[in-house]
């Protein structure tokens, strides 16, 4: 809190000096420069102080804008579509047609819901098999009409329920990945909060994957990892550090393409700047991808995923050992 105030105070001071500078004809450039440098250093510091666990907390912050906020802000005339055409409609996955910068797209978004009631309705963003079937249905729609696909990822993970297993949730996730990775239209994915494991990657196999600065993406929840590693869910903070689940790490590992900066303290404090940053990045990705013909698009995507992984050649070890 106090730190945030210091940053704000510095910013105010600079503004004051700047206005003095122009009004009174004084040369305050030096002072302004010093303060600006100080501010930049401070900002850098406050960022560095955010470790993996802080990011987990930010990614799960109750006031963090959810996917519906982004859909509303980024797209026009969102027209929701419901149902998987077999069993039901999963409220944890919103999807539909929308206009993005004048062109029709298909958008699908994992929705955690805002207040308690909405969270119940959306099952806290945990999709059931119906949700993944609905996702695939909407991907097919995008392909049929050559509409680009935008997915927004925010889920703690797929729902671990009895019916979900009976309805082959694993198979549905597999098919959703399979459909998305071979989709013959440009695909964009944005992780805006939690990218929870298989439940997230099911709609994440895009041409370009973007991550908000304070979002997380992980193979397992920090709590789940802590339980496995140390038999203690309370050591989730240690697990979060071990799992390297931040946007920076994801970028280093080569699994995402771009980190979207959030203003100041994060998206929950400054939603519009964050959403504008996201929109700018999405728009430039989409423009680029739209220039590719189908063959190039698919070849590039296939290569991108073919190359993911990290390993080394085995150096022959002595058998005597």
């Amino acid at each position: 809190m106090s730190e945030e105030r210091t940053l704000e105070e510095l910013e105010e001071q600079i503004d004051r000096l700047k206005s003095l500078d122009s009004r009174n004809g004084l040369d305050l450039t030096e002072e302004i420069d010093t303060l600006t440098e100080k501010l930049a250093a401070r900002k850098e510091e406050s960022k560095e102080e955010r470790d993996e666990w802080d990011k987990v907390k930010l990614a799960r912050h109750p006031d963090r804008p959810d996917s519906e906020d982004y859909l509303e802000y980024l797209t026009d005339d969102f027209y929701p579509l419901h149902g998987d055409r077999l069993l039901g409609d999963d409220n944890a996955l919103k999807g539909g047609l929308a206009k993005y910068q004048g062109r029709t797209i298909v958008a699908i978004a994992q929705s955690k819901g805002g207040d308690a009631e909405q969270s119940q309705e959306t099952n806290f963003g945990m999709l059931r098999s119906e949700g993944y079937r609905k996702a695939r249905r909407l991907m097919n729609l995008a392909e049929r009409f050559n509409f680009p696909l935008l997915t927004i990822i925010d889920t703690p993970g797929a729902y671990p329920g009895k019916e979900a297993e009976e309805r082959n949730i694993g198979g549905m996730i597999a098919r959703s990945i399979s459909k998305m990775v071979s989709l013959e239209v440009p695909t964009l994915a944005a992780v805006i909060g939690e990218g929870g494991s298989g439940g997230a990657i099911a709609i994440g196999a895009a041409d370009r994957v973007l991550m908000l600065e304070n979002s997380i993406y992980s193979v397992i929840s920090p709590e789940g990892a802590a339980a496995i590693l140390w038999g203690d869910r309370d050591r989730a903070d240690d697990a979060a550090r071990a799992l390297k689940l931040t946007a920076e790490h994801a970028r280093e590992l080569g699994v995402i393409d771009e980190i979207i900066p959030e203003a100041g303290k994060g998206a929950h404090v400054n939603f519009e700047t964050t959403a504008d940053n996201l929109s700018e990045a999405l728009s430039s990705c989409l423009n680029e991808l739209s220039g590719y013909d189908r063959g190039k698009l698919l070849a590039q995507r296939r290569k991108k995923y073919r190359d993911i992984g990290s390993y080394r050649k085995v150096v022959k070890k002595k058998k005597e050992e």
Partner: protein
Amino acid sequence: MPLFRDEEYLRVDFEEEEEKDEALWVKCKSCDKLIFKKKLQENNHVCPNCGAYFFLTAKERIKSLTDEDSFEDRTKRIESDDPLDFADSQGYAEKIEENQADTGMFDAIIVGTGAVKEQDLVLASMDFRFIGGSMGSVVGEQIVTGIELAAEKGLPFVLVSSSGGARMQEGLLSLFQMVKTTSARDLLSEAGLPFISVMTYPTTAGVEASIASLGDVIIAERGALIGFAGRDVIEQTIGEELPQDFQSSQFALEHGMVDSVVERDSMRDEIANILEFF
């Protein structure tokens, strides 16, 4: 021709090692009876008393499925480089080394070409002993290598899964192997080649939710565990106890997830029969 190449590194004499073990007898977890190890091996690791299945290692599985001397190991000579510098109580790098020493494998999978009742194929077999058969960068790469080999040679691809899912210690890289293997799977469809997925104990989480569920034909071995989420997690979430047969092979068959449930002894015939149609 040796069953497995590069034997200077791969210690393939698994059975010999077994014999080095002090214990000549093992206890069957299902019927509690003591069984002579040699007898168990001769019996395809099926309990001669109650019919329960013991684990098969990747090599034992390959041996049990392929024609004698037909298998040629094409597993890439690669190993994990601990990309996250994973901070476990025991370091991941150390864990890998230990598992390599224990299993004589680079990682949790062996891939190669071979024949099943004189039908050529590419066969990949996972090994649960190696960190729960989990899929990290190496396992993902080996599966893709197997698929590419099949596509190149015009051979069917058979994957025998025995895996708890994506490997935690490689974080996001493991999660993305789900996409990597799934994307490669399309090469088989494009080449008109069949992909038979064999699910054994266990085929769960990230492996079940990707490549293993994408077979043209999916066979479950009797006694397999097939599902996405763990039983404990589901029980905690829904607050009720799950039925005994939950996520069993039979359960998977009844819920339309697999095409058949097959006994271990007839797996070889079953695969050969299916391949006949393609």
